[in-house]
């Protein structure tokens, strides 16, 4: 049975530390665009922590929300790509095939979550920073779209290991870089097609919601709502 990779993000655990953001850059060879380009709005953070203020001083509160590619089942970015660079994989992922991308940026416009990023220039790394590049992940050219892949290289590596050892994949064996580094264990990754996996159970949690669900994209990331002191008191 094919896998269906999904994630759960526990907003009650997320502390906004942004370890996931840097881990992702490190794992996926994401370019650092520099001060000038960042000022032009070209920074590429495949996962970002959105921060929302609520209320006014002194009754003020902040909510954090990690946002990454939702790997939608009905991904709006897929039908619009003229060259199939944005397409659906058998494992339920939205694959971005760098070689096929001709850079129309239509997928980025169609994406309701703004999780797609464009290489406005061909990236370069001041030597020897290039030695850090992950050899399992391609380095993209200018004019190509990119986004979170759920660390497809780790998924593939996991499948290969399991295949060599002739055993099924274990729940929690594959961890994208963000999940692995999350200090509060707020991110959970796994196979939604396996009803016993942690992520499957969390996706059915009464605390679970989907981001921008009304768009009809059927995202595969479940957000678990923050708890409140009143809830804790009731127990």
């Amino acid at each position, binding site marked *: 049975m094919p896998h269906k990779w999904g994630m759960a993000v526990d907003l009650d655990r997320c502390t906004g530390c942004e370890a996931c953001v840097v881990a992702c850059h490190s794992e996926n060879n994401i370019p650092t665009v520099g001060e000038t380009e960042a000022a032009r709005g070209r920074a590429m953070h495949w996962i970002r922590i959105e921060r929302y203020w609520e209320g006014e001083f002194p009754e003020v509160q902040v909510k954090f929300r990690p946002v990454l590619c939702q790997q939608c089942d009905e991904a709006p970015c897929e039908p619009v790509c003229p060259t199939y660079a944005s397409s659906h994989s058998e494992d339920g992922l939205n694959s971005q095939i760098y070689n096929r991308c001709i850079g129309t*940026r239509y997928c*980025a416009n169609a994406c309701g979550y*703004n999780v797609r990023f464009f290489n406005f220039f061909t990236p370069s790394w001041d030597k020897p920073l290039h030695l850090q590049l992950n050899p399992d992940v391609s380095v993209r050219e*200018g004019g190509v779209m990119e986004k979170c892949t759920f660390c497809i290289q780790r998924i593939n590596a996991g499948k290969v290991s399991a295949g060599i050892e002739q055993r099924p994949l274990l729940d929690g064996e594959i961890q994208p870089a963000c999940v692995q580094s999350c200090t509060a264990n707020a991110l959970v990754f796994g196979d939604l097609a396996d009803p016993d996996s942690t992520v499957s159970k969390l996706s059915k949690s009464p605390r679970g919601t989907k981001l921008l669900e009304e768009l009809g*994209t059927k995202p595969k990331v479940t957000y678990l709502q923050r708890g409140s002191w009143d809830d804790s008191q009731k127990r």
Partner: protein
Amino acid sequence: MTRKSDSSLTDDLLRPVFETSTKFYVTAAVLAVIVAAGFGTWFYQIYWGMGVTGDNWPVFWGLHETNFVFWIGISHAGTLISAILRIVNATWRRPVTRCAEVITAFALMIGAMFPLVHLGRPWLAWWLIPYPSERLLWPNYRSPLVWDFFAINTYLLSSLLFLALPAIPDFALIRDRTTGWRNWLYGKLSLGWQGTPRQWHRLESAMHMMALAIIPIAISVHTIVSFDFSMAVVPMWHSTIFGPYFVVGAIFSGIAALNIVMAIVRRMLHLEKYLQPIHFRNLGKLMLAMSLLWGYFVFNERLVTWYGNTPHEMAALWSTQLGRYSPMFWTMIFCNFILPFPLLTIRKLRSITATVIASCGVVIGMWLERFLIIVPSLSYKGTSYSWGTYLPRWPEIVIFGASFAAMALLYLLFSKFIPIISIWEMKVGQHSKIKVAAQVQESEAAGELV
């Protein structure tokens, strides 16, 4: 109205083809420089990357895409006007048709450049052509951009045909008046036209079929361009109104462009006798009708959005009504809806100049409309944390300017290549007027008319 002899008409209309002034060379040179600057900038953009533009996260489309829609829109005037006017047999169309058809052809060519200009990796644009590849990959037919590819190419081919067909007799005319390489060239182009009744009959049927066929093609093209937006779930894009809204807007902007072009041509080529106030008045009336129709679509779109009060659309809406983009919005309303009315309805104000002013307003207003469709929606899409802004930078502005220069240059060169007013159609018009006048005389004489 003085009746012109056929030969003076032919002479007047052929003069620009055979006589070239210094003004022509100077203008052509200046325009050529601007167009060259445009291409230079484009290559600069290809070399360094799309980063030289103002596009960013999340507003990935800006001036280039605005220009794309704008020019494709302009292209609608020509063929639609020409086709519709032919079908309803509006006789005043005769001096106008070729002017219009040429606008269509060139606006389409220029517009069709912009999808290439806006690509991140334009050297791979040929993947949009369906061909059997060894990787068994075809274009994604579900993508509106692929539909654009087919629709625009179809429209371009048919417009060229629609332009070329009625040009045949005029090519023949020039062939008969020239020698040397011109004679050879125009000979080839006129496809052996001799003006036999059979050939005339064939031409008329072909024109009639094309006129009928091109109307649905034209409507479908801009509808398909509108699908680039309405097929994406983006605030204020995802609306069923976009198809007709875009088509109306396209015709609207096309007529305005036609007015401007006609006025320039009239002045530059001294065609005051042929392009008369009545033509501008009639086109003005059409433009006014389009303005009302356009206004209706805009109002409808906004009223429905406002009433629906969907959170994820309201930010985009208010940004155009009261916020960041509101100066542009209200300028657009002024240019498209408020300015044309007094200029085109109040008798005292009506003139060719007034029509041109109103048309310039409309062209500006319609360009703003394209911008306001694209950018505010992308600015206010998704979670509010990820909202953004957009400001164009010099490469986009240079290419924008160069597109206008290219239009002017192509038009200028075309007027040297073939009479800008279709000579044979004018003659037909003259003769049919004479015929009708003669018929009237006969009837009067026969006492059938009072």
